């Protein structure tokens, strides 16, 4: 029954960082396995970037340890750590050509000129930027700069690649392209990717596992499906996707249970009219449509429940058009869902981060 733990690329133990009296990071424990594509997700100010900067070595922790590949690097300088970073603003050296930028890490590690040129050209090719080596960063578009930053970090074959909001500065179209591309590159090079994002969709689509940060702590760690389908706390339910919470009076009336429960909007089936009833394994709640938001492939219905509270139901626009659905505003409806899709979540108020 003993299984060998996979090697840990990153291990954080009791990591804290205080700026004055504010705890930016209030005790984080985290293990990231070799080869994982791992996302740290959270709103701005939740401490995720500070954790990243402590792993890179730009900030030293107030308490706790950082281990890379089993080695304690807590007190080491950035240049003594086997990690490389793709910065949010890319931080390309403006006075160097693209090739010189990519070569930089190898140059300062005294790799012979011919060898480093070859590896740099290879890295540029892997991000589809052949032929751009002689340009200056200022002559590149945002997406190209982003790929140069990626090549500059990957060429060093670090143990862990850190990415700080890597796609934040790109427009939507490019961002979606780069999401796919980053994933492909990661699979190809097999390096552990640890990236920070405030975009829940990005975290869900790209990563093997996600840690959701709030107020300097981790609320939940899990696969995207676990995080989305089984949010552990009200914060996770709300931050990842739309939180549909049923609590208090409504929970007693609709579910016959005490506590707070979450049902994702797409799990709800909307039945128009008063006559419908739920199946044996189903729960249902009657209400009135107060708002209809047509969004192309799907429509969001905001339903005020008779029992109190409101739920949002997402329905595919399989056969209807915007004309049909907007007419439903004010209609009586029944929301129906399977019991397995409702989850109890910890509704106790979150502990405030400790003040030092």
């Amino acid at each position, binding site marked *: 029954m003993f299984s060998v733990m996979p090697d840990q690329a990153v291990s954080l133990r009791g990591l804290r960082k205080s700026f004055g009296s504010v705890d930016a990071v209030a005790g984080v424990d985290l293990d990231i396995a070799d080869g994982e594509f791992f996302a740290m997700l959270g709103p701005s100010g939740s401490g995720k970037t500070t954790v990243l900067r402590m792993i890179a070595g730009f900030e030293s922790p107030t308490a706790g340890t950082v281990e890379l590949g089993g080695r304690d690097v807590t007190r080491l300088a950035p240049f003594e750590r086997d990690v490389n970073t793709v910065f949010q603003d890319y931080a390309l*050296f*403006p006075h160097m050509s693209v090739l010189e930028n990519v070569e930089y890490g190898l140059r300062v590690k005294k790799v012979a000129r011919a060898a480093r040129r070859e590896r740099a050209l290879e890295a540029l090719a892997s991000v589809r930027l052949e032929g751009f080596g002689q340009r200056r960063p200022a002559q590149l578009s945002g997406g190209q700069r982003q790929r140069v930053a990626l090549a500059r970090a990957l060429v060093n074959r670090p143990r862990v690649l850190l990415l700080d909001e890597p796609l934040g500065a790109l427009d939507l179209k490019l961002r979606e392209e780069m999401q796919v591309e980053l994933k492909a590159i990661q699979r190809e090079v097999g390096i552990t990717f640890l990236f920070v994002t405030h975009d829940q969709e990005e975290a869900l689509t790209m990563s093997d596992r996600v840690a959701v940060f709030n107020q300097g702590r981790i609320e939940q760690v899990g696969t995207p499906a676990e995080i989305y389908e089984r949010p552990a706390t009200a914060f996770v339910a709300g931050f990842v996707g739309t939180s549909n919470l049923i609590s208090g009076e409504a929970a007693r009336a609709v579910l016959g249970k005490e506590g707070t429960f979450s049902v994702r909007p797409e799990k709800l089936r909307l039945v128009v009219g008063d006559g419908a009833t739920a199946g044996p394994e189903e729960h249902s709640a009657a209400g009135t449509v107060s708002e209809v938001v047509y969004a192309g492939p799907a429509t969001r219905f905001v339903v005020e429940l008779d029992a109190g509270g409101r739920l949002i139901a997402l329905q595919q626009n399989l056969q209807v058009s915007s004309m049909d659905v907007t007419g439903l505003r004010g209609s009586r409806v029944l929301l129906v869902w399977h019991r397995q899709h409702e989850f109890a979540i910890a509704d106790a108020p979150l502990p405030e981060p400790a003040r030092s």
Partner: protein
Amino acid sequence: MNLSRTARALLRIALALGLGVIYVPLAVVLLNSFNSDRTFGWPPSGLTFQWWRSAWNSTGVRDALWTSIQAGLGATAIALLLGTMAAFAVQRYRFFGRDTVSLLIVLPIALPGIVTGIALSNTFHTVLGVPLGLLTVIVGHATFCVVTVYNNVLARLRRMGRGLEEASADLGADTFTTFRLVTFPMLRSALLAGGLLAFALSFDEIIVTTFTSGAGVRTLPIWIFENLFRPNQAPVVNVVAAALIVFSVVPIYLAQRLSGEAQTH
């Protein structure tokens, strides 16, 4: 913003007047250096290169020029070193009295030269017992030359942020390598601009120089001042003044272009 026709005309006149007040007299100096009339009768009675020739051959002028260049280079070197270090300290580190230090570094450029002059002269003379000479002139000039380098480097560091240096450290470069390959190249044009301004400041300084140069050390401005009221030397003085106008344009022009370039990055 759109201005009315009258406002535009008035502003143009104001600009022309303002620039005229500054540059017409300078043009007169330049013209007079070719005026064949020894007393600068106006309009010039004829063109001559005689005064330029005699200025070129004057050992007084040559010695003074060489002294000025030495003083300028010396003061600029000190300013580059101290100004850069001070800018790093103030921009990169938090320490007790940081704002005060910043103020104290910038203050000398606003202090009346005569105060700086007397203060330095007294200190050199009576407190330190250092004989006045070229060295004391260099130190005197450096007190205010530091400011131009300090301000330029400070502004550049502020704009640069820490991102590039962090990227360099992240890629494996130690602190010294990062300075050599990233920080210094990024500062180069700011250093050049600050250095040129420092040199220009030192080159035309007269008050502090008067108090710190002692006997025998004569910078170009001092030489001009001494010969100003000798009727014989008037045309040569005028030539020196004309030459200085031309020479001053170069470093200021370069300094402006360098800071302009850095801004468009």
